């Protein structure tokens, strides 16, 4: 990393590709993606960690990218909505959102999908949530209340929640 007092240049892997960035230290990961890497899939709904529209995966774990400084992701790996699937081969969660109409305006959708992918992975690793009955289980199966609890950080003002739940249920093992 070369640094001045105000900016840093560093490498981060985004959707499998190493990216060299030279950014003002105050740049959030969300702005780095949207304004510097032309990846506008992650949305800015609040910029304050309140809505979840900016959710991306950082080393596979979901984060609000508006709350992460880009420079802190040096050496890490980011997956955004653009990196989850291709038009020909959508990620199963993307396909489920289409099939179950888990969206209306679609503004929350990239965040919902990244969040759902992260939630499924957390459950698979046995990470409990506040809704988990057996916190010692190796793997956790996501029932409705688990999905609601784990997805409660992603607002949908269009109120597509019923279908979002159905979409995640369809993919959850």
């Amino acid at each position: 990393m070369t640094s001045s007092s105000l900016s840093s240049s560093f490498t981060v892997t985004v959707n499998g590709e190493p990216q060299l960035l030279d950014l003002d230290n105050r740049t959030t990961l969300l702005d780095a993606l949207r304004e510097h890497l032309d990846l506008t899939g992650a949305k800015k709904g609040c910029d304050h960690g309140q809505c979840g529209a900016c959710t991306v995966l950082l080393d596979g774990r979901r984060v609000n990218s508006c709350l992460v400084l880009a420079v802190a992701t040096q050496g890490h790996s980011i997956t955004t909505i653009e990196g989850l699937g291709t038009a020909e081969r959508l990620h199963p969660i993307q396909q489920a959102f289409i099939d179950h109409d888990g969206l209306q305006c679609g503004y929350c959708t990239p965040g919902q999908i990244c969040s759902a992918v992260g939630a499924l992975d957390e459950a698979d690793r046995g990470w409990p949530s506040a809704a988990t009955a057996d916190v010692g289980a190796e793997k956790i199966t996501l029932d409705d209340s688990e999905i609601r609890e784990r997805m409660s950080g992603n607002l949908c003002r269009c109120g597509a929640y019923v279908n979002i739940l159905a979409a995640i249920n369809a993919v959850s093992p």
Partner: protein
Amino acid sequence: MTSTPTKVPAAPSDTASLRGRIGDSPLRPDGTLKVQGEFAFGSDLWADEMIWGVTLRSPHVHARIVSIDVGPALATSGVYAVLTAEDVPGGNVGLEHADQPVLATGVVRYHGEPVALVAADHPEIARQAAKKIRVVYEELPAVTDGRRALEPDAPQVHGSGNLLRHLKIRRGDPDPVAPLVVSLDFEVGMQDQAFLGPESGLAVPDDAGGIDLYVATQWLHADQRQICQALGLPPEKVRLTLAGVGGAFGGREDLSIHVHACLLALRTGKPIKMVYNREESFFGHVHRHPASLRYEFGAGHDGLLHYAKAELLFDGGAYASSTAAVVGNGGTLGLGPYNIPNVQVDSYGVYTNNPPCGAMRGFGCVQAAFAHEALMDELADRLAMSRVAIRQLNGMREGDRNITGQLIDSAAPVAELLQLVQDMPLPAERLSEDEFDLLSLPGGVSNTTHGEGVVRGIGYAVTYKNVGFSEGFDDYSTARVRLEITADEPTVTVHTAAAEVGQGLITVEQQICRTELGVQRVVVHPRDTQVGSAGSTSASRQTYVTGGAVKAACEAVRAKVLERASTMLDIEPSELVLDGARIVSITGAVVASLQDVLGTDAVDETVKWSHRPTYPVDPETGQGDAHVQYAFSAHRAVVDVDTELGLVKVVALDTAQDVGKAINPDAVVGQIQGGSAQGMGLALMEEIIVTGGRVLNPSFTDYLIPTILDMPPMRIKVLEYADPHAPYGVRGVGEPPTISSGPAVAAAIRQATGKALRRVPIRPEHITEG
């Protein structure tokens, strides 16, 4: 055309295999892009050489602008322009009344009013520069209470009286009496649309003094009209294209960044992007009117309503926006879907120095429904009648006249809708305190109760809402439909200016084209002002009105095709049928292919379509055929309330609604779910707190909207009683759920707690106090 037609063998209808017609639920054409993050919302737009615009807003509620010094801001490195009211070439803007300056002129009338604009090469530089603009204000006395605004000595917001509209409705006996009288006062707080994608757009100047604006909005042509007014430009120089819209709900019917971005673009000669952050979004659009309601119902011992008196006061804030129409809706529809022979309603809209209020889903009916439904419960309780039965007894039926004397000339299934929700299975009883399930209790995993102090309640509400624009408004839509053969396949292109905001209108347009023209491949043209106005995406009107226009345009295309076939084949057009890619005679024989008839030509028809007219109401009596169509819905809410902490969990929110004809059944259900969530939000948590004119909670930390945890399971029953006056029998869908859900939740909390609860949102302290 004289070519000999190819003989195509007779076969079953060419359209039998069509997928995605009316009544199907085809996938939305923009769905794949949306799940991939590739769909371009207004905030995602980019242009070469683009720079950023920001707004400086008033910190005061009411103040005279003594001076503005833009010097230090303009001198900031990276800044291209700083503009104030002096730089606006044209006049004021406004949806119904042009009373709002583009930038405050001499005076600011609300907290957050735009005062100046900055363009810079980075949004943060623009924001820093905006802070350097030195505005000297002299504060003026403000009026921030709707009732106070009408007192003769109240401060004047515009100097022309603070009364924006007073609608009177007088019907029947002017001095009615009844054996049983119930009355109440009700207050409704200020709700925000809180669409998830903040205001955004991109203005690109051309080299001839014109501009292209890409913007997330609800009504391109109303925007265009106002932008032209403000810029002093003709319409051909102001071209709009719809950018992806991240939700709307009424909050994008008025202008936001539109004129500001255009002004900066014309000044700098560069593309200007403007995107509000969440805080600015709370200041950057109108809200739902807070309302103060006084109601009195008189009834017989049999429960039949004899009379109703109501006074509704809507606080319009500093500028008119659509307040006059909201007052109209509140007044004409504000007693609910009931037969009431004697009526006195006074509906007022006033100017104050509060934030401007205007359109939000449910438009004037939402506020009123809390009052009339609370009063119906009160009446039922006083008579020891069932709350459902009293509504059914008084409910409108087809053939009745409403309080403005208008004949209800299509289905009005009030009693049936209530019966349907009452008969739905109730959620399981709450578990006992020893086997409690935290997740199902109010407070959830915060572990605030194990069931002690928790009581359950059930509430009902029913509503009716006008569809489309009312009171004589020239309400129409325009559709252009083109049929041609491309790559050997018949292809339809449908072009309207109707804003797709997530409700699925573009899917509906495709379904109508497939149904009318029997063509599988329907391409949706981007929405822009190159075609005539479609009117607003509001008032639950687009499937009806733009749907009607698309249907009419398809019919015109079909007629043209058959005319051409007729000339070619020398058969009367009335004896020919367009059947997908073939022309068939009325005997069923295939007489030509579409390819033969069209060749390389396209048939391209544009139709402007209106629903049947509405009329202004009489200024003294409020009588008249104000509305074109009514839509009905009922909700039943089941809640658990922790009476010690005032926490509420909505356990079930069930609903029945008549949609006339479900063009896209899945999308209908989606609208009902989303609309119900917003109504529930107003009942429980959503309020912009305004104190002395100042907004105190412009963030998603302090302005709460329902999450997936708050949203209960919903049972939904959709009725389809076709309206014979509407295309395909459709009835507007989007708004009724937002109206009847909230009052049902409030009623359930009242039933659980025994408290009067005459204000929404109902906060924990309202439940626990006294």
